[in-house]
């Protein structure tokens, strides 16, 4: 038995056989070809190279438009590389002389180069091996075409183990066959983690290297509560977890009875409890749990789906679906929040070329620099707003100038729509995420410029404490209980109240039951949470008295360490809701 610790990102327990998703995804079905077929196979190679070039050309254009010419240049370089005459002649020689299949020959040559780069003993060149591996994958994808081995062939339920899953891979996991997943890479707020929550399957990320310890097929347990991956469990451990899984199911059944109950404290304070969603389909998760609305609709998935820019109609259809399903309840659409960690496959590497992507071109900055992209999204939002209570929210605003610019573009878009005679709603409320310390510090000034605030705690914590949670060596410093973070939240709430503007908390913090009483004590009356957490949080609210919440906030203001805060809150939660504090 072996136990690996990672970051739990989606609760629950899953037990089943391991399925390793790595290069398996590009398993080469055939190493050799018949001598008569060599000519045909060479043509197949040429065709694949051409397709890869076209694909890279599209990436170049997209990256240049969206991010700037210097990013497009990376793909232009890839394009040149795949057409490198020396490399092609080496691949061709293996096919001609040794009757290797193009898949095998390409892999062999490219792997050789990747290894060579790694051995050059210079960090920059070693990193280039990733470029070569990327090219290899592109080539194999085109060569294998329909024959590509992947998750679509699963016939029995498995638990996925991978170095990393791309957002689109995660989104395409079939819940019938995939009971849970564990990745070596990633952090709590990575895109993959967010998608796992959306899929409602147990998941752990950021485990660090472990794939070399498994061969696939062995029995494993994913404990999505505590972030433990157990490989080859002992009989007694297996029994314990089977029982725990059963309790989880029962708990879920019990909590279902909360769907129709109102999230109101014992002393009658109504808390607005909304859901965070990523895909339009998730609206169902909100509706069935009786959410008061969608407090955060992340729209990045629209951009990640095809790795291409979505058209206005693609946006519009998605927004219509969400707003119609919510039947008059509010839907807060956050505009593009692509950050370094959320860029799809190829583009991600582009951004990582920057020395510090988290402080670079992302979110509203990206939108303001790519106005056609931004305007397309704004047009679709304004049009869809005809169908219900849609609100616009801008992410990662750090200066007043940005919010003014964004609002100005919004007016431009309205003017355009008007000129074109297209129906749209003019009085759509406009809000912003407060997730950069500068915005929190100047909250009062910002509050005058917007209709509402939503505090994004994930980024606020990261930027306030200067901690990248995905980095295991400092992850312990990342805490929503940090007194500095709590002080900032308090200031934002007070500033919003002074300006009479509503304020919601929509980060991971509000989805954690122990923090909810504190937030209510700080004056928060609206939260937007992972839909799966709505029943639990309702239970906490219904057992809470505002007076107690205020006492909690006041006590916390006297504590000076994250650990003290977290321990205290855990204890208080136990007092409020003994039933909830069951340890799974």
């Amino acid at each position, binding site marked *: 038995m072996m136990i690996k610790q990672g970051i739990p990102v989606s609760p629950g327990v899953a037990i089943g056989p391991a399925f390793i998703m790595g290069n398996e995804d590009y398993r080469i079905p055939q190493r050799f070809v018949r001598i008569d077929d060599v000519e045909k196979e060479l043509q197949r190679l040429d065709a694949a190279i051409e397709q890869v070039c076209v694909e890279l050309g599209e990436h170049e254009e997209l990256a240049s438009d969206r991010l700037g010419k210097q990013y497009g240049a990376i793909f232009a370089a890839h394009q040149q590389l795949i057409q490198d005459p*020396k490399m092609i002649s080496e691949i061709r020689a293996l096919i001609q002389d040794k009757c290797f299949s193009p898949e095998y020959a390409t892999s062999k040559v490219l792997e050789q180069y990747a290894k060579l780069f790694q051995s050059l003993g210079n960090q920059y060149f070693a990193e280039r091996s990733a470029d070569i591996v990327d090219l290899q994958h592109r080539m194999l994808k085109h060569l294998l075409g329909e024959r590509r081995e992947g998750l679509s062939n699963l016939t029995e339920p498995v638990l996925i183990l991978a170095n990393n899953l791309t957002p689109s891979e995660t989104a395409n996991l079939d819940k019938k066959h995939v009971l849970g997943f564990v990745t070596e890479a990633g952090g709590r707020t990575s895109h993959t983690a967010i998608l796992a929550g959306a899929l409602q399957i147990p998941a752990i990320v950021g485990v660090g290297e472990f794939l070399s310890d498994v061969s696939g097929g062995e029995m494993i347990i994913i404990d999505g509560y505590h972030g433990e991956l157990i490989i080859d469990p002992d009989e007694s451990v297996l029994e314990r977890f089977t029982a725990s899984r059963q309790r989880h199911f029962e708990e879920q059944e019990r909590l279902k009875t909360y769907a129709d109950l109102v999230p109101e404290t014992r002393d009658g304070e109504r808390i607005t409890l909304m859901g965070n969603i990523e895909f339009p389909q998730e609206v169902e998760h909100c509706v069935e749990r009786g959410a008061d609305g969608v407090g955060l609709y992340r729209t990045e998935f629209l951009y990640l789906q095809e790795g291409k820019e979505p058209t206005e109609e693609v946006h519009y259809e998605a927004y219509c679906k969400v707003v119609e399903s919510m039947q008059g309840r509010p839907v807060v659409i956050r505009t593009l929040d692509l950050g370094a960690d959320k860029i799809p496959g190829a583009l991600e590497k582009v951004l990582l070329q920057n020395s510090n992507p988290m402080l670079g071109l992302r979110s509203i900055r990206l939108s303001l620099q790519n106005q056609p992209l931004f305007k397309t999204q704004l047009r679709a939002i304004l049009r869809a707003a005809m169908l219900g209570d849609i609100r616009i929210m801008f992410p990662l605003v750090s200066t007043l100038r940005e919010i003014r610019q964004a609002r100005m573009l919004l007016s431009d878009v309205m003017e355009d729509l008007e000129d074109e005679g297209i129906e749209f709603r003019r009085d759509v409320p406009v809000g912003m995420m407060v997730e950069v310390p500068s915005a929190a510090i100047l909250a009062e000034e910002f509050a005058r410029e917007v209709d509402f605030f939503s505090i994004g705690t994930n980024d606020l914590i990261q930027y306030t404490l200067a901690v990248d949670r995905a980095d295991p060596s400092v992850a312990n410093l990342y805490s929503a209980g940090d007194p500095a973070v709590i002080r900032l939240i308090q200031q934002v709430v007070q500033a919003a109240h002074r300006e009479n503007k509503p304020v919601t908390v929509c980060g991971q913090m509000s989805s954690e039951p122990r923090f909810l009483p504190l937030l209510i004590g700080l004056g928060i009356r609206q939260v937007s949470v992972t839909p799966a957490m709505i029943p639990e949080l309702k239970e906490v609210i219904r057992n809470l008295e505002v007076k107690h919440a205020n006492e909690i906030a006041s006590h916390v203001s006297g504590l000076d360490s994250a650990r003290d805060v977290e321990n205290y809150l855990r204890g208080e939660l136990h007092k409020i809701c003994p039933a909830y504090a069951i340890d799974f």
Partner: protein
Amino acid sequence: MSGPYRQNVTVKNEQGMHMIPCSRVAQLVRETSCQVQIIRDDQVADARNILDLLMLKAEVGTSLLIESEGEGAESILAQIVKLFDDDFEIISEN
């Protein structure tokens, strides 16, 4: 046939002769029928091949010798030297 022509250049790019500079040079050479070699000490790279060029591991400050031969060799040499002088026309943050 003309040449061979030779000229020394120094790598100015902070990251050295990385993927983009190499691809710019190779792209230029591939458009001609010239033989162009870039030489670092005793290591010779065919400028048509990005991988060859990368293998030179030319970091900032490295001195390289460019040698060209064939139809239009003099002009291609000048163009490559210009690429080095202009730091490969790499556009910085806009």
